[in-house]
């Protein structure tokens, strides 16, 4: 190797070491810059994805297509398509209305956000949302989705990238640990997902149940609220099977949230940020964290 190459190699190693020693704040600034640059493309990609999905769903209506092809003319086809579009708008309207009602009812300070990028990471199950530090979102804030009168846990904020973006670590990831319990039971354990983001909807593992645990397939698994991060009674999934070990038991849990279809989600703000939010109305069906329980998570370690 020539002297010239050795000098370049040493410079490269020096720069590499320097970069790996960056403070989290410096990393945050770099990532914010990258996100500002790429944000229009991320949004465009998300919109394109949505359009393609919408096209797919329309073409997957064989009955409608058969009707169109059978006898009716072109005008009638157009009208049918308009009706389909109106139905979709109505469904979306209902969904948003439901979300709004949920937000008004919830005692927690919630921020409505939209998913703008899916699975950006190769090894982690994550999504990017369109709210960040300007909306009061902080690291480890729980992210939920309304499911009727209840709420399902989507994951937690793993990183806030600037004022308008944050990364959500999904419940299906191995590193998203939730203290959970079986509904109508005292059995508690730790729920987590799968390593490697190999599939979007992997089964979750509920570990550290007692060896006498009894779980019926279909039984709901909810957050216990005993941890410091997540409120109690958030829906996590349903038991698929239970295996008893020598010292403990482990249940396989199917997640309740469809992580493929995430569009509008809510971030629960920590108590100190909640003061800035509009006053909350009557309690929802899930309980907020108790005042003694710190809602704000511990800050990420700073070197």
């Amino acid at each position, binding site marked *: *190797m*020539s002297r*010239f*190459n050795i000098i*370049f*190699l040493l*410079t*490269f190693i020096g*720069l*590499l070491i320097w*970069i*790996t020693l*960056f403070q*989290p704040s410096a*990393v945050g600034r*770099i*990532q914010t*810059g*990258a*996100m500002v640059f*790429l944000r229009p*493309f*991320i949004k*465009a*990609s998300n919109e*394109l*994805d949505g359009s393609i999905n919408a096209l797919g769903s329309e073409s997957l209506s064989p009955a409608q297509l058969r009707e169109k092809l059978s006898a009716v003319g072109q005008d009638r086809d157009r009208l049918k398509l308009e009706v389909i579009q109106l139905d979709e708008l109505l469904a979306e309207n209902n969904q948003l209305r439901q979300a709004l009602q949920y937000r008004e009812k919830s005692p927690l300070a919630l921020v409505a956000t939209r998913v703008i*990028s*899916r*699975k*950006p*990471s*190769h*090894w*982690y199950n*994550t999504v990017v949302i369109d709210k960040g530090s300007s909306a009061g979102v902080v690291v480890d804030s729980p992210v939920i989705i309304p499911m009727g009168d209840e709420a399902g846990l989507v994951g937690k904020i*793993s*990183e806030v990238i600037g004022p308008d973006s944050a*990364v959500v*670590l999904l419940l299906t990831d*191995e*590193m998203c640990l939730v203290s959970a319990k079986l509904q109508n039971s005292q059995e508690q354990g730790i729920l987590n997902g799968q*390593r*490697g*983001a*190999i*599939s*979007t909807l992997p089964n979750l593992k509920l570990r550290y149940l007692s060896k006498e645990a009894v779980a019926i397939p279909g039984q709901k698994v909810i957050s216990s609220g005993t941890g410091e991060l997540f409120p109690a009674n958030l829906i996590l999934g349903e038991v698929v099977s239970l295996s008893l070990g020598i010292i403990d038991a482990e249940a396989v849990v199917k997640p309740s949230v469809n992580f493929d279809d995430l569009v509008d989600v809510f971030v629960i703000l920590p108590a100190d940020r909640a003061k800035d939010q509009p006053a909350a109305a009557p309690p929802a069906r899930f309980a907020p964290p108790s005042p003694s329980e710190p809602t704000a998570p*511990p800050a*990420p*370690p*700073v*070197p």
Partner: protein
Amino acid sequence: MKFFALLAGMILLSFIIQEFLPVFDWAYGSRLMLVHAVFLAAAVAVPFPAMLGLALVTGLLWDARYHVPIYPDEAAFGMLTQSEIPFGFTILLFGLTGALIQGVRPLFRRGRWELPVFMIGLCTGLSLLIEYLVISFQRGGLEISVELWWKLLMTALFSSLISPFLLLLLSRVADRMRYRIRTEGLKRRHTYDGDAL
């Protein structure tokens, strides 16, 4: 110099296109790693110092966009201050795989692309495998499943499939810009393929 600027532009463009590339659930969550493929194709065409420069820029941009700061359990107790995959780690991976692929530069110059195409896939898979092993090391348990191998294999395959087009593009651009792909080892021997280097 123009050629290097063009390569940097291509890498930047690949970051934008990468945003539009889907994840294939049917292929165990694998995807086309276009940025990796473009970098590795460029690494075949440039000398060692330029490859290191490209590795630095590409790795930094990749981490700026895709780095997820997940902290291992020990971090909660103040024992560790770095995330599972440290910021900047991708630069090292790009540097390593770039150095590896530099070994097939003479073949690329001769127009023999079989091995470079294979190596682009291999190096993409290798860098992902190293990332996975680092994550596993941090979590204290190695979980190797069939699905994981499929994910790595499919990702490597996608990179290999796109690489002939990238290599063709690079060689055409190099011709048009009158850029000659030189290799130092061959320069010393003065006997390679009868060409005057």
